[in-house]
């Protein structure tokens, strides 16, 4: 095969650079997510069976089934899941992403992001806030009630507001957030604030009852991570543009389901390369210990795949205590990522690195050769369902994912 890897990767990278993700609107998953059905439960990371799911993912599945009305009780939900009465599929195979457990069911409202360059869409649920939430595996009544409110009120109010607001270009918003100290994975304070600024006037212009509008704004205001569920599908939309460029060794997906870490590569269409997920090393909230931590979970590593998150650590000095303590540690994390990426973002710039573009386009050949793993900074889930976040810190994908991908690449392409 006459494929020049450099050219293939340049093509993949330029598709990523050219992407223009905008918020298209909000709708229910059933209405917009391709292949969605009432019985399908989407989850984070690579494919997984019920038996192999970790605590938080199992809990979220139970919560999702109760919310969706597929089961009346946790016991019934477990029985059905074990008996194969519901289907599971990775969000990534349905053009979407989900933070932490990432569970989504048919009735949930989802953000619709559209890449204006190629017209393709990506999806993500709306962020529920912190504490007892579905994405950490909680399924109590309080959780279900919140999800119902999101379906009945939050989704519709925001949907209406988006129709009244000027188009929101996610790439611009992320670029601004980076300049305000976010890396849009573990810190989303600036991004959330910017989003509220964009949406607030339009929310007020909607015809919903005043109480609903107030509650929606209070909800947005109370949750620093509201923006994460937008930065993720925006990153996904950009990377989707590089799928599946023949011969390219650029990584288009890094995702974890709490049991396994999986990656996908532009030139290896639809294939997952998985290995056991690692334990995140980091700063734990008071009262928690390492033995409480669940292995790495969530699709949020899509941000790193796109040059954000841990790759743009240098942009977020406020959270350096998660990554070793000093600003120069954070800058060194970012510097190191330039060694395994093929390009620098034309949109996302890191202010205190002289506005250098974020390291973008992870190349599996470079990862393997240099033996440098992508740096992910991420939240840590409690290993038991429903406890929530116990800390945040650093994690790397297993090297095996990249090694296996390399082997598959050689098998597919190298005929020498």
């Amino acid at each position, binding site marked *: 095969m006459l494929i020049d890897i450099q050219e293939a990767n340049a093509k993949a990278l330029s598709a990523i650079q050219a992407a223009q993700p905008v918020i298209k609107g909000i709708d229910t998953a059933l209405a917009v997510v391709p292949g969605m059905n009432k019985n399908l439960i989407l989850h984070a990371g690579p494919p997984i069976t019920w038996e192999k799911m970790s605590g938080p993912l199992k809990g979220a599945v139970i919560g999702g089934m109760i919310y969706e009305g597929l089961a009346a009780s946790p016991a019934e939900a477990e029985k059905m899941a074990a008996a194969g009465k519901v289907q599971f599929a990775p969000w990534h195979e349905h053009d979407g992403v989900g933070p932490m457990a990432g569970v989504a069911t048919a009735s949930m409202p989802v953000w619709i992001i559209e890449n204006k360059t190629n017209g393709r869409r990506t999806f993500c649920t709306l962020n529920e806030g912190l504490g007892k939430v579905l994405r950490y595996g909680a399924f109590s009544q309080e959780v279900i009630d919140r999800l119902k409110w999101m379906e009945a009120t939050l989704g519709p109010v925001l949907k209406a507001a988006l129709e009244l607001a000027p188009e929101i270009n996610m790439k611009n918003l992320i670029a601004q957030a980076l300049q305000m100290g976010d890396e849009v994975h573990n810190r989303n304070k600036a991004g959330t604030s910017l989003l509220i600024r964009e949406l607030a006037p339009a929310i007020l212009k909607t015809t919903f009852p005043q109480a609903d509008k107030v509650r929606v704004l209070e909800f947005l205001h109370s949750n620093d991570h509201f923006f994460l569920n937008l930065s993720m599908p925006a990153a996904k939309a950009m990377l989707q543009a590089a799928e599946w460029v023949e011969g390219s060794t650029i990584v288009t997906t890094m995702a974890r389901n709490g049991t396994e870490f999986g990656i996908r590569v532009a030139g290896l269409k639809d294939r997952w390369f998985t290995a056991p997920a690692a334990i995140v090393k980091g700063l734990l909230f008071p009262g928690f210990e390492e033995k409480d931590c669940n292995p790495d979970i969530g699709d949020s590593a899509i941000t790193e795949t796109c040059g954000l998150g841990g790759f743009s650590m240098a942009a977020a000095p406020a959270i350096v205590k998660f990554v070793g303590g000093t600003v120069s540690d954070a800058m060194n994390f970012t510097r190191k990522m330039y060694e395994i990426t093929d390009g620098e973002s034309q949109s996302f710039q890191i202010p205190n690195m002289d506005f250098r573009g974020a390291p973008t386009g992870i190349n599996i050949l470079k990862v393997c050769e240099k033996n440098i793993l992508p740096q992910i900074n991420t939240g840590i889930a409690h290993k038991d369902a429903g406890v929530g976040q116990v800390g945040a810190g650093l994690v790397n994908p297993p090297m095996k994912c990249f*090694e296996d991908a390399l082997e598959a690449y050689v098998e597919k392409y190298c005929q020498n």
Partner: protein
Amino acid sequence: MSRLAEFFGQKIKVINLGIPGFAEDLKKQGIENIHTEWRPPAGGNKKIQALLARVDAWQSQVKAAKGAR
């Protein structure tokens, strides 16, 4: 004059791979140089080195074939 003889008239600029002291000595002499924190490719993993070598070899073939066209 041969290219090597021409080079004899130039200032040297050095890339140092390996022992850091060699770069430090050059620095002391005011010679432009860069030290490389060299590490074994693929962390010393022979299987991965072999796979990478195959990709390299294939890419050289591809480049040669393209050049020939």
